[in-house]
């Protein structure tokens, strides 16, 4: 066993911060540490404001929006809260009381939507198929003129499936509803043009693209009726109060600026190689999520192994220096199997046996070979123990 090798494969959760980003951020803690309270500020304050403006511009450019349409937040969870609650509260007097979300959303969308029931909103949940694609016919059948907002994630964080956002937003707009998408794991992993795709609100985050944790953004199309959910000062065009996280925002912009398509291609190739090798070396493996790899984010692979439970796999691999996660109930704080895999119509058994591999640019082919070797050993070891093995 290679003792000093630690293979981190949980990049759909978070990524390591790029060295260049980390270096850039440090300056805003120790040198340019002022806050950007006013455009008529002192020199250090203006430097902070310039850094924020630069990040806003870089992010806007990446999604083809105007800079004024990008609001910085503390992360995708806050962005999802701001998008859904902000639109709901700003439209309390409207007759539109229906909010439609998919069943495989992140909890920050599902639980936010649920929390609006007590304000008189009715929440509807969209089915997904076996590969994790949202059923747009179901959307067409649920939506009506009383629908305020449709929220469908751009890509799923567990199984990687990329949704047909263009057609989803078209259906929403046909009924005059707003369209929001949680693009936390999709941003920069897939090309996103908010105008081409008809997106009204979009949540993104820095820490999944080699940027820092604790900073995200919400794209809000000009003209969207929305109000702030955190009261205080007038920061972020009066839509998000609180002293700006200048180092985080600066780091977010830097991460976007240096994000490389070449690295992304490398990640995609390594992911494809990982899947090939797993299929070739291990029996009883099932792919979870889109089988068309062009409809998966490039850094995600999710498979289930027959006859074994995921927590044991995770623990064994961890002791061997490999970090992955599982959708098994045994792994979760709530002892619930992944709501995403269950919504896709899988048995609990398949959910318990699922393992997610999240890849990133720092991996090598050697890391993948070593991972496959260990996964094979662990799976075989656990199958010997399993009463279900044939």
């Amino acid at each position, binding site marked *: 066993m290679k003792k000093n090798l630690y293979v981190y494969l949980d990049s759909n959760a978070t990524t390591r911060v790029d060295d260049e980003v980390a270096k850039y951020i440090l300056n805003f803690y120790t040198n340019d540490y002022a806050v950007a309270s006013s455009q008529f500020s002192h020199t250090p304050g203006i430097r902070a404001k310039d850094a924020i403006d630069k990040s806003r511009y870089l992010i806007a450019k990446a999604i083809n929006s105007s800079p004024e349409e990008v609001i910085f937040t503390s992360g995708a969870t806050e962005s999802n809260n701001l998008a859904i609650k902000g639109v709901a509260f700003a439209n309390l007097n409207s007759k539109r009381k229906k909010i439609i979300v998919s069943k495989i959303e992140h909890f920050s969308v599902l639980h936010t939507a649920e929390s609006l029931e007590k304000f008189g909103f009715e929440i509807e949940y969209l089915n997904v198929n076996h590969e994790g694609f949202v059923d747009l016919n179901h959307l067409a059948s649920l939506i009506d003129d009383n629908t305020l907002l449709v929220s469908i994630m751009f890509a799923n964080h567990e199984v990687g499936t990329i949704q047909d956002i263009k057609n989803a937003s078209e259906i929403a707009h046909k009924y005059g509803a707003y369209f929001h998408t949680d693009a936390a794991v999709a941003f920069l992993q897939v090309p996103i043009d908010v105008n081409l795709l008809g997106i009204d609100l979009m949540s993104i985050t820095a820490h999944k693209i080699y940027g820092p944790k604790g900073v995200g953004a919400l794209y809000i199309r000009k003209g969207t009726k929305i109000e702030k959910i955190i009261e205080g000062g007038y920061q972020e065009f009066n839509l998000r109060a609180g002293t700006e996280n200048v180092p985080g925002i600066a780091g977010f912009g830097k991460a976007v600026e240096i994000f490389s398509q070449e690295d992304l291609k490398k990640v995609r190739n390594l992911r494809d190689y990982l899947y090939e090798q797993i299929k070739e070396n291990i029996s009883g493996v099932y792919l979870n999520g889109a089988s068309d790899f062009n409809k998966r984010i490039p850094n995600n692979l999710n498979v289930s192994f027959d006859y*074994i*439970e995921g*927590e*044991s796999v995770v623990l064994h691999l961890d002791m061997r220096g490999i970090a992955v996660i599982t959708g098994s109930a045994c792994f979760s704080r709530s002892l619930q199997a992944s709501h995403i895999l269950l919504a896709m119509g899988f048995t609990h*058994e398949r959910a318990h046996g699922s393992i997610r591999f999240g890849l990133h640019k720092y991996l090598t082919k050697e890391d993948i070979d070593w991972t496959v070797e260990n996964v094979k050993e662990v799976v075989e070891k656990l199958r010997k*123990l399993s*009463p279900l093995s044939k």
Partner: protein
Amino acid sequence: MSLSYSEKVLKYFLNPVNVGELKDADAIATEGSPACGDMIKLFLKVNKDTKVIEDIKFKSYGCASNIATASVITELAKGKTLDEAKKITWTDAAEYLGGLPPVKVHCAVLAVDALKTAIENYEHTHGLLKEKKPTDEKIVRERLKHVINPLTGLDVLQGNLIKDIKIKDGRIDITLNMAKNNQFAGNISEEIKERLEPLWDVKEVNIILQES
């Protein structure tokens, strides 16, 4: 995550003891189901005269604590008489392991249940019951509570899978609300049989499935 387990749990997880099957087992018990994420199958070899558990093996589909607690339970039971082994509790196993995270206590409970059921099955099939109650629908239903539908994670009673139960002259006929070609029909039928066949006065268990 590994930090939430004690060193002893991790030790047994990495090197479980008494793993495997006993081909000539005197009693077998299965508890849990893959649907719940935890499942253990236990095999007993018992000395007919002394009633000492001479050999015990297990197989586990489950998390680290499931594997570790099953290891410990088998270790504690080996060499004990059936009556002594019956007294082993899940707290014995948890204490022996240096504690379990609260959400994992059910794994220890499951392992102890498997041991108790295996002993009970042995008593049924070897004429050791102190009080021989004739098998009735209540007893059958009690045992069916432990058979889980892999699709829903509910037991066959909660899941409304039992259409009818007939008990006559040592023969039990169970009619299921399930089509013959259902992918889990074989699985569930087998588990029901395994649950009911050890009952002392049962000679035959017959599962009736719906035409598809």
